[in-house]
């Protein structure tokens, strides 16, 4: 109870409104920024009220004589000036946390102000229920006070396209607002459609209402197989629906999340339209319980708003339990789900009380919310790991759920790849498809790998350590030293700076220096030597080479430094670095000499995109390149170890290793599809843009996976 007294002292100074159930009942003040138009406001308000009701019940089940509920100050996102609001918020001392806004641009504005509002070492936590612009992730990825409860529009774009695939359309067109809010769709839609082997026929991008009318007219008068429409807001809908009706509603049409707004139910010609929106987890029961209580379904984002309150309540309990004085740190604790413990779907009052008891008892927790598992830490500490989408229709002027969807599929949702996998299967059967749309390869007979770290100093420990981690993993997958060429300076173990001489560890502290066979010290090679090694030209100096042919795959991972015009090579007599010319020569000679079946190169260097552009320019069949950073930016080191006084790994490589570790060599069906690898590294690599080159000449990244490069054959 002493702790509880401390907690009460930390609560806001608002007048308490007691239910009479508790001896001490206090209110914690929250600021909620959401669109408060007449259609939406009742939904948000009832959700907060419902949460408070359940929280109070949960406290009752704990049989304590003290409790708290939330006192909400509402801000209308549609009317408030975000800059003025953000500025005012920097001076507020009475707010425990902020929930909202909904729109990504508004979230960005408020977050910028909150970034500067340091309250003696802590910040006001901001939980964005539906901020889906991917750039928000990059911007606030390292901010421990910022959380989004929805995956980015990269996921929504893929969900939408999976529905296009399911309709057996051959191509797709996009009608979209040009606003920053929708930029993620524009960045990703074409790439993802191509990955689904869908042609992108037209992009209809509009800036304003005049252009909207014109583009909508074109979208439905052109002969499109399928149109995906991402309006800026519900107010764009009348013009879109008018054009759709004018052309007989013949083109299959699917709307994105911004169309799921109760305001559209009042528009003409809305009957029968379909779309995808961000929703609750089907297995949580939130949607059903909501209808039982309020006699109508929730709007998009309502489950996420509920979960925001749930997380803040749990965080507040951590504050109460003296985990931290600060709510932002406690929120990080609340979302660091322990997957080794059973997940408790905790949005209802009794399971909520179970989680609360665990927190008070100091036990680990694993929270399932209304919107799904609230494990945010395992992604990038900003975005939710999994988001569920609702496929809706409008029937009798009401939103009707048709199904639930998610990227990976669950007991109650179909994965985005279910349709495409099947349709890919169909089109690979010669009788059913034009085989020319697939790139054919001979049967695979073996794999080789070349792993290279090009730095020499202790300060760049991470480059050699990362290469050794990959080497160790490939060996565990059955590849032997005859099939791996390992090039590192090999000067870490005995380095005078090494606090544990004779050993090398990875960023998690695992030993990675046993049974290592180094083929070359990098300082003993020249950039030109790589071509000889890769094309099997053995010499007195080059004793370890790759003897491959057109039935074998080659995997190359490069870790080191880069500059805008070259990748840095250790000092040598020619003063040479590895340039685009070297890369082009390798690609040309290896392709013309048929030295590989497929070749995957991955570069963890600054400005890696510069070298990787050679892959796209050459366009050689079967070659693919993934760069940690594009040609204009640096890549980023992470995981600083104060004992070693160095960074232990790089962000991109860390994410690559994470996916590599998911490959289960004992499960014949386990693989990491290259599109999955790419998405994961893009979403989770901080500070640089992971980039992909020459995908057009490689074939489906859904079908091809890491397994065919990194395992013994």
């Amino acid at each position: 109870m002493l702790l509880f007294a401390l907690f009460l002292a930390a609560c806001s100074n608002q007048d308490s409104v007691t239910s009479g159930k508790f001896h001490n009942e206090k209110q914690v003040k929250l600021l909620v920024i959401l669109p408060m138009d007449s259609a939406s406001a009742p939904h948000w308000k009832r959700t907060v009220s419902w949460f408070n009701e359940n929280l109070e019940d949960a406290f009752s089940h704990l049989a304590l004589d003290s409790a708290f509920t939330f006192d909400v100050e509402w801000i209308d996102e549609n009317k408030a000036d975000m800059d003025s609001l953000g500025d005012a918020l920097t001076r507020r001392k009475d707010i425990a946390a902020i929930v909202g806004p909904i729109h990504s641009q508004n979230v960005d504005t408020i977050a910028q102000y909150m970034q500067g509002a340091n309250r003696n070492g802590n910040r006001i936590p901001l939980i964005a229920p539906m901020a889906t612009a991917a750039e928000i992730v990059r911007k606030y990825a390292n901010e421990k006070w910022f959380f989004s409860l929805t995956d980015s529009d990269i996921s929504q774009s893929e969900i939408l396209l999976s529905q296009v695939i399911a309709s057996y359309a051959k191509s797709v067109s996009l009608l979209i607002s040009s606003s920053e809010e929708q930029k993620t769709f524009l960045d990703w839609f074409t790439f993802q459609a191509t990955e689904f082997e869908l042609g992108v026929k037209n992009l209809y991008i509009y800036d304003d209402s005049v252009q909207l009318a014109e583009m909508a007219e074109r979208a439905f008068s052109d002969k499109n197989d399928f149109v995906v429409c991402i309006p800026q807001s519900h107010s764009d809908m009348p013009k879109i629906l008018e054009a759709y009706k004018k052309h007989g509603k013949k083109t299959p049409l699917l709307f994105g999340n911004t169309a799921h707004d109760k305001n559209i139910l009042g528009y003409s010609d809305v009957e029968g339209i379909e779309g995808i929106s961000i929703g609750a987890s089907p297995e949580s029961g939130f949607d059903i319980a909501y209808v039982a209580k309020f006699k109508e379904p929730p709007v998009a984002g309502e489950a996420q708003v509920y979960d925001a309150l749930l997380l803040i309540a749990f965080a507040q309990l951590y504050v109460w339990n003296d985990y931290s004085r600060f709510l932002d740190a406690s929120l990080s604790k609340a979302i660091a789900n322990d997957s080794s413990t059973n997940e408790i779907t905790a949005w209802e009052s009794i399971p909520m009380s179970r989680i609360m008891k665990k927190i008070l008892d100091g036990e680990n927790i694993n929270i399932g919310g209304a919107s799904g598992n609230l494990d945010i830490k395992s992604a990038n500490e900003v975005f939710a790991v999994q988001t569920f989408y609702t496929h809706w229709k409008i029937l009798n002027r009401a939103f009707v759920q048709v199904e639930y969807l998610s990227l990976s599929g669950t007991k109650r949702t179909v994965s985005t790849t279910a349709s495409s996998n099947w349709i890919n299967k169909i089109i690979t059967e010669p009788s059913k498809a034009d085989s020319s749309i697939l790139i054919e390869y001979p049967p695979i007979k073996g794999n080789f790998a070349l792993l290279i770290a090009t730095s020499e100093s202790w300060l760049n420990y991470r480059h050699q350590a990362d290469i050794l981690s990959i080497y160790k993993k490939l060996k565990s997958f059955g590849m032997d030293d005859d099939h791996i060429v390992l090039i590192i300076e090999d000067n870490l173990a005995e380095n005078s700076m090494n606090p544990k001489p004779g050993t090398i560890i990875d960023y998690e502290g695992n030993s990675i220096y046993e049974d290592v066979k180094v083929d070359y010290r990098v300082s003993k090679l020249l950039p030109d030597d790589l071509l000889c090694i890769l094309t099997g030209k053995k010499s007195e100096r080059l004793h370890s080479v790759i003897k491959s042919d057109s039935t074998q795959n080659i995997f190359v991972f490069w870790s080191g430094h880069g500059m805008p015009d070259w990748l840095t090579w250790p000092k040598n007599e020619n003063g040479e670095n590895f340039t685009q010319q070297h890369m082009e020569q390798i690609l040309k000679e290896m392709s013309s000499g048929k030295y590989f079946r497929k070749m995957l190169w991955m570069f963890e260097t600054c400005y890696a995109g510069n070298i990787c552009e050679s892959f796209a320019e050459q366009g050689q069949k079967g070659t693919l390149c993934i760069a940690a950073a594009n040609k204009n930016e640096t890549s980023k080191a992470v995981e600083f170890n104060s004992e070693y006084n160095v960074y232990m790994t790089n962000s991109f490589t860390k994410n690559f290793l994470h996916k590599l570790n998911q490959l289960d060599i004992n499960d014949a069906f386990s693989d990491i599809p290259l599109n999955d690898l790419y998405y994961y590294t893009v979403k989770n690599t901080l500070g640089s843009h992971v980039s992909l080159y020459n995908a057009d000449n490689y074939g489906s990244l859904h079908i091809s996976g890491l397994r065919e490069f990194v395992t013994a054959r």
Partner: protein
Amino acid sequence: MKKALFIILTTLSIIGICSCSNSESIVSSKAEGCTPEDCLVYTLYSQAGIGDFGYQDLIYYGMNLAKESYHFSLENVHPSSMKSAESYIGTFFDETDSDKYRQRLLVLTTEEFDSLFAKHPEWKQDLKNTILVLGRRENSIDAHFWDISLYGASYLAGRTVKDMGLDSTMILAANPKTQAIQDAISGFIDGYRKSNGFFDVNRDILYLEDNEGEGFNSQMSYFYAAFDTTLSEKKFIFPVMGGSNLNLFRYMREVQDSLRILSCGMDANQENMSEGIAFSIEKKSDSLVMEFIEKWATGQPLETDFFATFDSKFVGLTVSKGYEEWAPHFKKFEDEAAEAERKYLEDK
């Protein structure tokens, strides 16, 4: 025409646990009304879980509606395995002597957990602790068994489907062991044959899984494969797969324009799932749960074994928009279906 019909299972006398009748009750709840502090309803859903837009969701909906009306504490439990279900049920038994609640009710939404009672052979219900199983009694445990038969509605479906000229049908079923599924299958086949339809039970029924409790959660890929080879020639598919029906409906949405397969919604009105859903058979588990809870919460007598049939308020058949021409056919065979169900249950 419809009126409630309660059938007290004749199997009770075989099992011999009690000689109750419709007017008798082995549990009499207190009539003081509920508060969240006094009354707890503890509901265990199937391992397949809610989110099926059907049977499980209806129960969950009914439970939440009942909670709004009768103000008890509601704990909805979604076990991921038989082991965790056993643990949850164990918790209920362990706390029978606890004074925390005045009344406790354990609701099992399927019979798949029946076997877990074996570890509690001495269990007896009392004024304080009650168990409701939403399913058919297959053992002598001291609990209320309330169920809804879909034989009659399925008979009407089969009778009408053939009467509408659909002469190539298939039944997709979750498994061959669940009694409720077998009732529905028997009803559909009997009705279809009554309309002179040909149905080969060896060829025209596909089971997704072999064991009880399984098949309600199949993978979408199954439907892509099955339709490509077996089902695409059929004109009507009768689905009794619980949550797996959703994948059938998804497939129908995707191929509807080219194949024109028809099917029906099951357990709930599912006409929105596909334009090929001509009608829905509604198993109103939400109303059934509400009825039980009302009696439990207000101290009314509770029937030990309650079996609702086609002509009760707990079964419905709704014709979808666009298929209105089917309605007179259903009407024509309604009494016949009720009679067929009566005979079927008597013969059992």
